């Protein structure tokens, strides 16, 4: 399960005023170019790792959820994506061969690709792993003036979310998105609306998707051993019969292959 000390973020749409500070602070920290005239109209891309958009009549952030059991890291054939003990899912770009299976696998559609480049890389939020290592908050949480993005230990954030539910009856749809979804995520979301009304994928259950794959991969050694014995045995029996036939002097070719 999640390391309780792992850092995370609590996103609260009821506190967001749509100032765009988080998105701009993210660009600043990652040295990314401006990609939209109006910050609130920006879309996630290889040059934008975090957005805040108006969805319906709320302001909603999108960024990497930093899953406890990330599909991207499970899918990556070269272990270029890694869930660190500190919380962030980080990307070791020198390993990447560009198969883009992480993009297929991610249930939130987060990893983006540098399609225009001749040596493209996958780009996404890394939860400011270097800032966390220095004991700093993420750039977005540092910039947020309302507590719509709160940084902390995941366990403390869950407690904070429940405290907000308790202190403000009727303000929230009392569900912490990311507490159970896909086995838990380091980024949690609370709101008065359903996830699908916020543009977040709905219908994610508590099973981490990588477990669906591992169930099958895990039995490969059994398949190999059983298969080898079975096929070897069939070979032995089928060919032994020929040898016996040859030794006994049966040369009737028509009995072969039945």
């Amino acid at each position: 399960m999640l390391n309780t000390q792992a850092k995370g973020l609590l996103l609260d749409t009821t506190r967001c005023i749509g100032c765009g500070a988080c998105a701009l602070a993210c660009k600043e920290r990652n040295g990314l170019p401006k990609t939209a005239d109006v910050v609130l109209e920006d879309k996630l891309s290889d040059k934008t790792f975090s957005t805040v958009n108006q969805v319906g009549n709320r302001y909603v952030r999108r960024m990497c959820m930093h899953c406890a059991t990330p599909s991207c890291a499970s899918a990556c054939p070269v272990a270029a994506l890694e869930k660190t003990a500190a919380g962030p899912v980080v990307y070791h770009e020198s390993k990447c061969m560009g198969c883009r299976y992480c993009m297929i696998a991610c249930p939130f559609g987060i990893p983006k690709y540098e399609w225009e480049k001749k040596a493209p890389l996958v780009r996404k939020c890394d939860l400011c792993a270097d800032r966390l290592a220095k004991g700093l908050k993420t750039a977005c949480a540092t910039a947020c003036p309302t507590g719509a993005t709160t940084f902390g230990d995941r366990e403390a954030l869950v407690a904070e979310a429940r405290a907000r539910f308790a202190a403000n009856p009727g303000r929230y749809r009392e569900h912490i998105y990311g507490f159970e979804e896909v086995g838990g995520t380091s980024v949690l979301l609370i709101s008065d609306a359903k996830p699908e009304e916020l543009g977040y994928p709905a219908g994610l259950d508590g099973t981490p998707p990588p477990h669906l794959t591992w169930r099958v991969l895990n039995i490969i050694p059994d398949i190999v051993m059983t298969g080898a014995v079975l096929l070897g045995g069939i070979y032995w029996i089928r060919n032994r019969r020929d040898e016996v036939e040859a030794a006994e002097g049966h040369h009737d070719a028509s009995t072969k292959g039945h």
Partner: protein
Amino acid sequence: MPKLALPRLTFWRGVLLAILAAGTYATFLRVFKGLAGSTNLTDAFPWGIWIGFDILCGVALAAGGFTISATVYIFNLEKFRPIVRPAILTAFLGYVLVVVALLFDLGRPWNVWHPLVMWNPHSVMFEVGWCVTLYTTVLALEFSPVVFERFKMTKTLHVLHVIMPILVVLGVLLSTLHQSSLGSFYLIVPTKLHALWYSPLLPVYFFLTALTLGCAMTIVESFLSHRAFGKELEMELLVPLGRVALLILGVTAVIRFADFRHRGILGLPFAPTYESRLFLAEMIIGVLAPALMLALPKVRQHRTGLFLSALLIVMGVVMNRLNVSITGMERSSGEIYVPAFTEIAITLSVVGVGFLVFALAVKYLPVFPEHEMKDARPPVAPDALHVAAQPIRSLPMPAIAVVALAFVAAGALGADGVRRREVVPGPPAPAGTPALAAALASFEAPAEMTFPQAPDSPGPVSFRHASHVDASAPDCLSCHGNSYSFLGRTQAPPAGLMHDTKHCGGCHDGTSAFSVEDDCTACHKSE
């Protein structure tokens, strides 16, 4: 001096030349313009036909290699020996071409060897990478006797003959693993792949369809070799393969029915949607029609009937792989994917090169060894030759009707499906201005900050967000959007320059706000 004779330009050679020319141009675009300049792939739809057809279908179409080698070497059905070599050659070429196609698709193809060194045993693709590498080596070894025979290297041949059973067992195991694992690729996306194709049984379906396809491709290849190289048609071998294909088709259909019943989606294929229409088309072409044909002995034993049945199976599996990788993934992606000209040109070229190399190999290597064919062939049943000589017009009427109906039905369903093609609606569009009262109550201006003091300054200056920000409508970006860092990275302005228009003086000019030259004590606090 011997005159070099150019091959005669036939229709098919002309087609091949045109395809290869387009492929060369497409390769140029891929190399110099990157993936953006050569594909219609996007962040929402990152896998196109280079994965869906070249890889998923390519590997499946090469399944004849392990099916036939297992039949001959493990099950000891010697009569199939004459078709072992062409089957293994096709498989080997297939895998080499799959790797070539993969190099086009990979963003950083020069790192293609990484999975062999940088392990992630939890990744299906890691497992497939290893299996395909090992199996291609096994296929090369299985085919190598043909090359060694050509150069009469008897010692090497003997060694290979001894280890052949081990190679074949290894080949069958590796094929079982990666044929099924191509289906396992999609196990990780239960919320993205449409329920008609997403199933916990994906690996089972992929393996069973690969087996069926192994039989069907062997039949199709034999017919094509018969036409191209004048090889005699081994009807007494191919008809049993057709029966095996029918058996596996039936088993797969029963498993699929049970799977759908348990998941409670038996009615889903008949919903009026894009996905359901294409699913039905896949079932009609790939399962229903070939099963009906192969079930009729008269059709099964008819050379054209058998060929058409096998061709339907091949088409059905291709449709299945494209449905899984493209049709089934479209709705959740929110985009409609249509391959670019470049993607199609590369794909056709890969197929074309496959045909070309196969033809060259058959010409220069003993792929169809005459002595083996004579030795292995059991006594020909009197009517077998008669059967093999039947022309197409003698194909039983029901068979012609089945093929015609299947194509008409699948075509109509496909066309209706494409007409209904739509993507899932995105998040709701912005509606009005969000009510911010509750959110603004949480607004907390950042702490006060004190600037460094110049020697001639009348007193230190502190900047208070509270007095600069309208708490009822904070506009963070009016200052932070341009000059001031959110992360404290902005260098404190050199002492003495605060009155400058780039700093406090920019707004405190006497117009927007009181001037920096007005009242010193308004900002400079004396200690």
